[in-house]
C-alpha cells in the first residue's frame, strides 16, 4: 500500500531524512517510532504530499505522490501532529467544508458527516462550535475529517500526544476500529509502548535513518541482545582485558587505540558490577560508559526502559 524508497529530505544543509526506506502492506498497521526531531513528521508530510522530497520515491497504492499528487491525495487520510480549527464554525459545518474540499456531492455530505461523527463519538457535539471543543475532541474531529473520502491509507502523526489518559484510551479504541475496517495505517509516536500493542510492525528512526524495523516480537529479541561498553584505562590494557574476560556477562572484547570495546549482555546493575570489579582489581579506569548511538541508547529514549516494552509484548 505504501512504499518509501531511499527518501531524503534536506532543509538547506541539514538532512532531516536520510535515505529512509519502508514498506507497508495493505491492512497493516506500521508504528513509526523515534525521539523528537528524528524526522517522523517530515517523512509523513512528504507522504501526504505537503513537502517535496529532496530525493527518493514514495508510492501509495502504486501512485507516485510527487508525480500525481491529486490522485495520491485521494487515497490518503492525513492527521498532522499540530493543527488548528476555525472560529465561528460548527462541527457539522466544519465536516461539510472538508467534504466540499474532497469533492463530496451535496446530498451525501450530511450522511457522511453523521457516520463519521458517530465513529469518533462526537454525535452530540454536532452543533457545537469547533473552537469550544476540548483537545481530545478536536483530535477526534480531525481524525473524522481525514476519513471523509474513505482513504485506504491513514497517516496519523502522534495522534495521542498531548491527550490525557482517558482521551488516549478513546483514541486507541477508535484506531482499533479503523484497523478492523481494513485501513492501512502509518502511525507515529516518540514512545514505543504506546504503539507496540496495536501495530503489526514497528520501525525505529533516529536522525533521519531507520535504525531497526520488524515485527514487535523481532524487535524485542534484538533489543535484549548485546549492548556495547566503551572503556578507557591508563597505560597497559592487558590487565583490564584479563579481568573483563572473567565476567560472565561479557562477550567479545576488542582493543582499539584509545578504548576497549566490550560486548555486554545484561542490565544496568550488572554493568555497575563490571566497573566495580575493574576498580577493585586496581585498574586505572578513566572512562566507562555505553557506546553512543547504540541501539539500547535509542531504545531507552523511545521506550523509557526496555522492561516496559517486554511487559507490553508479554501481555
Amino acid at each position, binding site marked *: 500500500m505504501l512504499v518509501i524508497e531511499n527518501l531524503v529530505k534536506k532543509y538547506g544543509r541539514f538532512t532531516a531524512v536520510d535515505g529512509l526506506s519502508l514498506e507497508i502492506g495493505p491492512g497493516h498497521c506500521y508504528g513509526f517510532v523515534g525521539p523528537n526531531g528524528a524526522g517522523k513528521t517530515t517523512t509523513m*508530510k512528504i507522504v*501526504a*504530499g*505537503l*513537502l*517535496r522530497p529532496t530525493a527518493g520515491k514514495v508510492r501509495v497504492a502504486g501512485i507516485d505522490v510527487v508525480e500525481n*499528487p*491529486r*490522485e495520491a*491525495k*485521494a487515497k*490518503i487520510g*492525513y492527521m*498532522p501532529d*499540530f*493543527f*488548528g*480549527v*476555525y*472560529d*465561528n*464554525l460548527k462541527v457539522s*459545518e466544519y465536516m461539510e*467544508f*472538508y*467534504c*466540499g*474540499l*474532497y*469533492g463530496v*456531492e*451535496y446530498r451525501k455530505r450530511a450522511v457522511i458527516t453523521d457516520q463519521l461523527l458517530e465513529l469518533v463519538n462526537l454525535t452530540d457535539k454536532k452543533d457545537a462550535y469547533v473552537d469550544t471543543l476540548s483537545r481530545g475532541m478536536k483530535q477526534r474531529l*480531525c481524525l473524522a*475529517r481525514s476519513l471523509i*473520502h474513505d482513504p485506504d491509507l491513514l497517516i496519523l502523526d502522534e495522534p495521542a500526544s498531548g491527550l490525557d489518559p482517558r482521551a488516549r484510551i478513546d483514541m486507541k479504541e477508535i484506531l482499533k476500529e479503523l484497523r478492523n475496517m481494513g485501513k492501512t495505517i502509518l502511525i507515529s509516536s516518540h514512545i514505543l509502548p504506546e504503539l507496540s500493542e496495536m501495530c503489526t510492525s514497528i520501525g525505529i528512526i533516529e536522525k533521519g535513518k531507520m535504525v531497526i524495523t520488524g515485527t514487535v516480537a523481532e524487535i524485542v529479541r534484538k533489543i535484549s541482545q548485546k549492548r556495547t561498553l566503551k572503556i578507557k584505562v591508563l597505560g597497559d590494557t592487558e590487565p583490564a582485558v584479563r579481568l573483563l574476560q572473567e565476567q560472565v556477562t561479557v562477550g567479545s572484547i576488542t582493543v582499539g587505540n584509545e578504548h576497549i570495546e566490550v560486548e555486554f549482555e545484561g542490565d544496568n546493575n550488572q554493568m555497575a558490577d563490571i566497573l566495580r570489579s575493574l576498580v577493585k582489581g586496581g585498574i586505572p579506569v578513566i572512562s566507562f560508559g555505553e557506546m553512543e548511538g547504540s541501539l539500547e541508547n535509542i531504545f531507552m529514549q523511545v521506550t523509557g526502559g526496555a522492561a516496559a516494552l517486554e511487559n507490553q509484548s508479554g501481555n
Partner: protein
Amino acid sequence: MKINPVIEKELRIKMRGWRSPALLAVYLAILGLVIFFGFFENIFDIGYSFRTFNPRTAYNVYNALASFQLVLLTLIVPAVTAGAISGERERQTLDLMLCTNFSPLSIIIGKIAVSIAQIMLLIVASMPILGTVFLFGGVRITDLLLLIAYYLATALMVASIGIFFSTLFKKTSVANILTYLTLMFLHFGTLVLFAFYVRVTMDPVNFTRPTFNEALAFLFANPMFGFSYLLEGPSGGGTILSLFTMVLSYGAGNAPVVPPWVANMIFDVVVAAVLIPLSARLLRRP
C-alpha cells in the same frame, strides 16, 4: 454545480455574528452623512429652492463618494487578502486544506472571490445612496455601471497582489506591509517617476508640457489616473483630475491612444492573470 467550498465556508464565518452587519451599517451611515452635508451646504448657500439647484454640486458629491469608495477598497482588500493564505498557515489549518485533493488554484480563486465579494457588498449596498445623487442628474446609468466595473477590476488587482504576498511569505504582517508598499508605489511612486520625467524633459524656455500619451506611459498602472479620467473625462476641471491636467498639454491630436481607465483595467486583469496562477504554483509545493 458545486460552489467553491472555500467561498461557502468563508462567507459563513464572516457573515456570522454582529460584526459584518454593524460594519455595513456604520459604512452606510457615513456615506449618508457625506451626502447630507454635501447638499446641506448647497441649500444653505443658494437657498432651498430646487429651481436654483446646481447640478455640478450633485456631480461633485458623486465624485467625492466614488473616490471615497476607491480609497476604501484599496485599504480593505489588502487587509483581507494579505492574511488569506499566511493566516491559514499561522492558524495551522493550511495543511488540512492542502492535503485534500482540492486544487490550490481553486483555493486561491476562492479566497480572491471572497475578498472581492466583501468589498463589493459595501459598494453595491451604497449604490442606492449614489443613486440619489444620480437622480439629481448629471450622472448616467452607464457611468454607474462603468464605475462598478472599474471597482471590480481594481479589487481583482489588489486582491491578486495581496494573495501573492500571502503565499510567498509565511507571515501575515510581512505580506501586509509588502502589499501596502506595492500599492503605494502604484499610487504615488508612479507619480513621482512621472514628475521626475517631466522635470528632466521640460524645456525651460518654451515651457513644453508632456503629452497625454507620455503621461499614460508612466501612469497606466496608477488606479487614480484611470479613475479620475473615468469620472471627469479628458477636460476634467473637477476634483482629482486637476492634479494631472495641470501638467498635461492639450490640443488637437493629443488624445490618449487608449482611455486611461481602459489601460488601467487591462493592467489590472494582466496582473491578476499573472499572479493568480503563480500563487497557485507557490501553494502547490512549499
